[in-house]
C-alpha cells in the first residue's frame, strides 16, 4: 500500500474514532495524560499494521487489543512509566455536585485489578459480547464472566451506600 493511501485512510479512521478511543482509554486508566499516551501508542501501532488489519477487516478489534494490552502492561511493568504529580501546583479542581457520582465510579474503577477493569470497559462501555471480550483479552469466556461478576459486585459494594444515601434510603 502506498504511503499516501495509507495516510488518507488512517486519517479518516482517526478523525472518526479517536474520541471514543480516548474516552475508553480514560476509563481504563483514569488519568487524562495517561489516556492520551495510551491513544498515541495505540494509533502508532494501528498505523504500522494498517495494510494488514484493513485487509482483514480487523481495525477496530486490533485497536482495542493494543490499547487494553498496553494498559495492562503499563500496570504490570514499571518500565518507561511516567507518573505525573503536579503536587501543590495544580490543585485538584473543585468537583461540581453533579459529577459526584462519576467521581465515585472512577474511584471504584481504580480499585479494580487491571484485567477486571478492562473487562468492564470492554463489556459495558465498548459493548462487546462475552465472546468478543474473551478474544480481545485472550482468555476463556468463563474467565470473562467471572471477572465481570467480581468487578461489578465490587463496584456495587462501593457505590451502593452512596446511591442509597442520595435516594434517601
Amino acid at each position, binding site marked *: 500500500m*502506498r*504511503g*499516501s493511501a*495509507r*495516510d488518507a485512510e*488512517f*486519517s479518516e479512521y*482517526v*478523525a472518526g474514532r*479517536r*474520541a*471514543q478511543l*480516548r*474516552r*475508553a482509554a*480514560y*476509563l481504563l486508566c*483514569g488519568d*487524562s*495524560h495517561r*489516556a492520551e499516551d495510551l491513544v*498515541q501508542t495505540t*494509533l*502508532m*501501532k*494501528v*498505523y*504500522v499494521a*494498517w495494510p494488514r488489519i484493513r485487509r482483514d477487516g480487523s481495525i477496530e478489534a486490533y485497536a482495542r487489543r493494543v490499547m487494553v494490552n498496553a494498559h495492562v502492561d503499563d500496570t504490570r*511493568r*514499571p*518500565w*518507561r*512509566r*511516567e*507518573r*505525573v*504529580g*503536579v*503536587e*501543590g*501546583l*495544580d490543585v485538584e479542581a473543585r468537583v461540581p455536585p453533579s*459529577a459526584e*457520582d*462519576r467521581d465515585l*465510579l*472512577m*474511584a471504584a*474503577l*481504580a480499585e479494580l485489578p487491571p484485567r477486571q477493569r478492562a473487562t*468492564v*470497559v470492554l463489556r*459495558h*462501555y465498548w*459493548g462487546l459480547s462475552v465472546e468478543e471480550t474473551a478474544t480481545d483479552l485472550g482468555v476463556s469466556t468463563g474467565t470473562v464472566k467471572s471477572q465481570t461478576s467480581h468487578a*461489578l459486585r465490587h*463496584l*456495587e459494594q462501593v457505590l451502593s451506600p452512596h446511591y442509597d444515601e442520595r435516594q434517601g434510603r
Partner: protein
Amino acid sequence: MNETEWAERLEALAAREDASGFDVRDDVARGRARLLRNRVGVAGAAVLAGAVVLGTGLALGGGGTGHAAPGPGPADGGPTATATYHEPQVTLRPSAPPPTPTTPVPDARDAWLRTQLDRPWSGPQDIPFKAWRNDLFRTARSVLDPSGTHLTYSSAGLNSGSDQHGVGLGIKLGWAEPGAAGQGMVQVEVTSEGGSDQERCALTGGFGCPRTVHAGGATLKVGNGDGGAFIVLYRQPDGERSVVLVDPLFGNNSRTPVRAGFVSRQDVYRLVRDDRLDLPQPPSS
C-alpha cells in the same frame, strides 16, 4: 444495577474526558515515525550482523578499524517519513572481546526500588521517591539555573523503568524564559539498567549518542536530536549511568519551543557527572 445502567454510567463518566482538540496529522506523523523506526531497526540489525562478521574477519586478519556505513533508509515505495531517530555511528573495535553475559544479582537497594515502584498507585500522592525527586530537581537547578528563574518541577512526576539488571528513575523539568512564550524541557535520569549506551540514549531521547566528548576528565556520550534537542550520558564509576536530555520543546506541556541553546552544553556536561546524581537509598542505609 443492570447492564444498561452500567453502560449509561460508564458512558457518562467517559464523556467528561475532553477528547477533542487533536490534530490527525500528529497521529499520522507519529505512525510514520514508528514505521520508519521499525524499518531502521530491521536494517540496523542487518548492518550489525554484517559488522560482526566484518569485525571477526578483521580480528582474524591482524586487526584494524573500520566504520560501518549508516543503515539504509526506508524501503522503496514507503511513505516519506519525518523520523526523529538518528542512526548511531558504529565504530568497530575488532580487538575488543564481546562482553560476557552475566546473570545480575539484585542487591538490597535494587529490590527496595522495585518494591516501591510496584506498589499500587492511583494519584500524585502515591508517586514514590518524593524527597529524592526534589533533591534531583535542586541539584539540576543548582547547576543549570542557579538564579532559580527558569527551571521548574511543575510536573512533580516520575519517569521509571527497570530490566533484569537494574532500575532507572528520572524527572522532567520545565524551562521557561521570563516574558517569553513556550516551555523547554530538561530530563534527568539515573539508571542501573543494562543495555548499551546507545540504547539508553534512544530509550530516553529517541535518538542515539554516538559522539564522545571529554569534559572534566570524564568521557561523555553525546547525541543530537531534532530542533536543538541533545542528550548526554555519563557512566559513573560505580557503573550506574546518568542521562540528561535537553529539548527546547516540552512536548507534553507546550506547543511553543524556547530558544535553542537555552541551556549551555558545558553546564549539562557538569550536571551529568555531578556526584549527587544517584539512585535513592533505602531508609535504613
